[in-house]
């Protein structure tokens, strides 16, 4: 496992040679009623561009927390995190949001589509947020790709779980992210639908040449990744190539 040199880490916006994600000695500690709870501890992790990584572990081991920190949704209590050349731990929420908008896509276990928006509008959202023109055209193409070309104007409540997740995947790729994070993307789906979603995810990942970091219980899904990172009790156990 390589550690980053200090010199490089200070070059905040300079693209790094190969690693898109770096963490150093990350810990997450939250105060609870019974005192401090250590959720993550001593996490050193590096993920290279184009890599596909599965984070596995028992329920409650801290996977989601780690994913949130890697994606800049949350900040660690101590330690440093770099994402695509930006040190997330040195940015404020305003700047982190900008990095998220430019660099990452996210797929959630519970889909997280906006109920008041149609499928098409949900997929258009990232481009609209950035004020990019041609949002609608790009979104139509993506929805075609995920096989929902006929359901553009349907609302999430009119779609099945698998269909909703496909919309969510289209939305995640709509911002042409460098890194795609997925937190148990098949956790809410039956096996067959889940398998199709996985296929779709890897297909698009190849096509857009994205780095993929996913949390899963699903061994088949983990097995399709180049690397499996196991986490237990808030600590990294092993980081094996699949």
């Amino acid at each position, binding site marked *: 496992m390589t550690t980053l040199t200090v010199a490089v880490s200070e070059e905040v916006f300079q693209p790094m040679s190969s690693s898109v994600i770096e963490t150093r000695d990350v810990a997450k500690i939250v105060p609870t009623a019974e005192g401090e709870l250590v959720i993550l501890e001593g996490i050193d992790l590096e993920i290279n561009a184009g890599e596909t990584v599965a984070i596995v572990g028992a329920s409650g081991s801290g996977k989601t927390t780690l994913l949130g920190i890697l994606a800049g949704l949350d900040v660690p209590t101590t330690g440093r995190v770099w994402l695509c050349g930006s040190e997330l731990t040195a940015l404020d*929420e305003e700047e982190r949001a900008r990095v998220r*908008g430019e660099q*990452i896509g996210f797929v959630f276990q519970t889909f997280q589509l906006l109920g008041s928006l149609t499928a098409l509008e949900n997929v258009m959202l990232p481009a609209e947020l950035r004020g990019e023109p041609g949002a609608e055209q790009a979104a139509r193409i993506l929805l075609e790709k995920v096989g929902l070309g006929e359901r553009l104007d349907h609302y*999430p409540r009119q779609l099945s779980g698998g269909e909703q997740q496909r919309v969510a995947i289209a939305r995640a790729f709509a911002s042409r992210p460098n890194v795609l994070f997925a937190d148990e993307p098949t956790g809410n789906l039956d096996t067959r639908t889940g398998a199709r979603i996985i296929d779709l995810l890897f297909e698009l990942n190849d096509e857009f040449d994205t780095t993929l970091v996913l949390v899963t219980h699903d061994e088949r899904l983990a097995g399709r990744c180049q690397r499996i990172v196991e986490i237990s009790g808030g600590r990294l156990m092993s980081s094996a190539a699949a």
Partner: protein
Amino acid sequence: MKANFILRLAWRDWRGGELGLLIIALMVAVGTVTSISLFVDRLHQALLKESANFLAADRYIGSSEAIPDSFREAARARGLDVADTLSFPSMVFTLDDRNTLVSVKAVSTGYPLRGWLEIADEPFSRGTPTSELPAVGEVWLDARLFPALGVAVGDEVEVGLARLTITRVLTTEPDRGGSMYDLGPRLLMRIEDVPATQVVQPGSRLSYRLLLRGDEADLEALKASLKLEDDPNYWWRSIRESSPTIGSALDRAESFLLLGGLLGVLLAGVAVALSAHRYARRHYDHVGVLKTLGATPNQVLGAYLGLLATVGCVAVLLGLLVGTGVHLAIVALLKSIIPVALPLPSARPFLLGTLTGLICALAFALPPLLHLRSVSPMRVIRRDVGTPPPSQILSYGAAAVGSLGLLIWYSGSLMLTIWTLVGTLGALLLSGVLASLLLKGGRVVGMQAGSVLRLALAGLQRRRKENMAQILIFGLAIMLLLILVLLRTALLAEWRSEVPEHAPNHFVLNISPGDVEEMGAMIDAVSPEQGGLFPMIRGRVTAVNGIDAGTWEKSHRSELGDGPGLRSGRNLTWTAQMPADNTLVAGQWWQPGDERAMVSLEDDYARDLGLSIGDQLTFDIGGERLDVEVTNLRRLSWESMRPNFFIIFSPGALEQFPATYMTSFYLEPDQKQFLNDLLSRFPTVTVIEVDAIIAQIQSIIARVTQAVELVLGLVLASGCLVLVASIHASRDARMSEHALIRTLGGTRRLIAGSLAAEFAALGLFAGIVAVVGAELTVLFLQTRVFGLGASLHPWLWLVGPAAGALLILVVGILGTRQLVSAPPITVLRGLN
């Protein structure tokens, strides 16, 4: 973030029904204020115009001395119209030397500036309005005077040294009412003829008035420039001071309308806050997702501010339209009842409506939206993370400041606002305790109840905090409505009692003692409703405690007093029993058999002149001296059209002085011919007809009443909106809970039943809270703001909770109908 993105966001939210309630609540706030203030504005102007008729002017300057020309010039320079009147009592003689005492009014051209004279060619026939005046050298007489003097139209009479021709019968003059001191039948002549009469001499009882007509602003400017407050010789009068009945009816009605509008705004504000909170809560996830997609906190803030601005503008525009529409509908509806032509509205109502919308948006809707900025993106993956509740201080603080500002600005009355808020807050505090007790009690009852009720009461207990809040909100809404209903009832009752039906509407003065009995019998035959019989003796105070009255007045007269002076001539009376509508405020009424010379004074009169119990007053009555001691103080009901006396003597004190008597009685309009019989039988008495004035007062009060009820209706609508908004706001929590119960096997009937029971219980509790709050607040308002008596309302204690339960039940069931009838799967999906 781009403007068109915000517009699209707003459009999508609207389409999804998320913004609907917020927009409607804002719209109703704006619409209520606009329509109420439009109506009040126009009605107020109309009522003022109409009541100005009682003065025959918008304002007048009164004096017992001639009004200087400089006043006239100052008024004309401000573009005001002016006219002069001069009233004085005088003897009038016929050519064959019959005579009687009349009240002369000499007027200049232009009189009356408001209202009109009515005249007839024959005595006691119906008058027709005219814009003419008697020509120079002519007089118009009251119908009374024709039989009294034995004259006819065309004859000549002498006033002082002037010989004038009778050309018309005067039936109505607008400013006839009011003064009980302007006794005697009227003789109307031109002011140009006054010098020729040579009756105006120093010491005569003269009443000069300079009538004024024009814009409010010009009138007020004139008032300010003349600085008459410091000058005891001139008094500035508007309808409020010169006709207490109408003045106080207008004042109270205005307070009520203001209060109504004010409560309407508060209710709408609550509805806005509720729907904004719900909107914000529903958008936490929305914002979380936007943030994972890279929206920065400032972008989020910008987007929702933009959204609120868009929504605010749309709502204000719609609200103004709706307000105008409602107002026009009201005017159309009331057209037949409000014959007064309504003047065009000013810009103020529209401005008021717009500002209300903005303030509501800022104070009630903004705080929860501001909070969206700090929603953590982690929320998307961990629901329990990163959403501290909106700052309570910010929310409540902004709402408090907003409502306070709005209320003060709207009502223009700090007192009214503060009492309303104090009452509301106090009641809320108390209600909080009460609500939590009720919830606890509810669970205890629920333990023994059947499954539907148990589910409902358990539900109430489970979401205790939310339900407390909801009881308070329901309670507040119901309470505000009850307050208005109670005040309306109190006001109407008060107004009705001021001018009761069949109240005496004719006064007879100058009845000689020998005629009392016969006249009594004659009146008895036509009118069952008679006022008391009072002796009347003219006299004036010459000394207090041995000090000359003039000197006493200089050192003791209150600065604020605007009542009559100490030394002016007064009508004195004596009676064994205190008049029924007077109330004793200090001292003792005299005992039967007490022979001492004692006197009772009207409270304000005594205070103005620095007189108190125990003071010795010296009177000059017909040149003779009489010493009496003040033994008690009374308060009069000035608002009643009854004979009132500032000074009443104990029986015996005045017995040696020659008195005439006065009485009063009620006549139906078609019995007027009776006056003729009465006057031909007793030609020396004077009859004063106040029936026209009473009718006018009644019509004004009737109109004010309609306005009051109308505003009540509008506010009721706002109140219902709050109920709907509140039920809507709690829908999400209920929805997930009931979806769960249904997946666990709860039947639709169980859920419908438990929802109904839950709403009924909420409504019942809210009703109890509302009754307590309303009673307290109304007690406050009645005694402090409206100057009415205090009273509790036992019926309310039954009706309030029952009505609360029913109301919330109906609104609640309507609001959650879908929730019950939809299949569970859609309920689950709707949770997304």
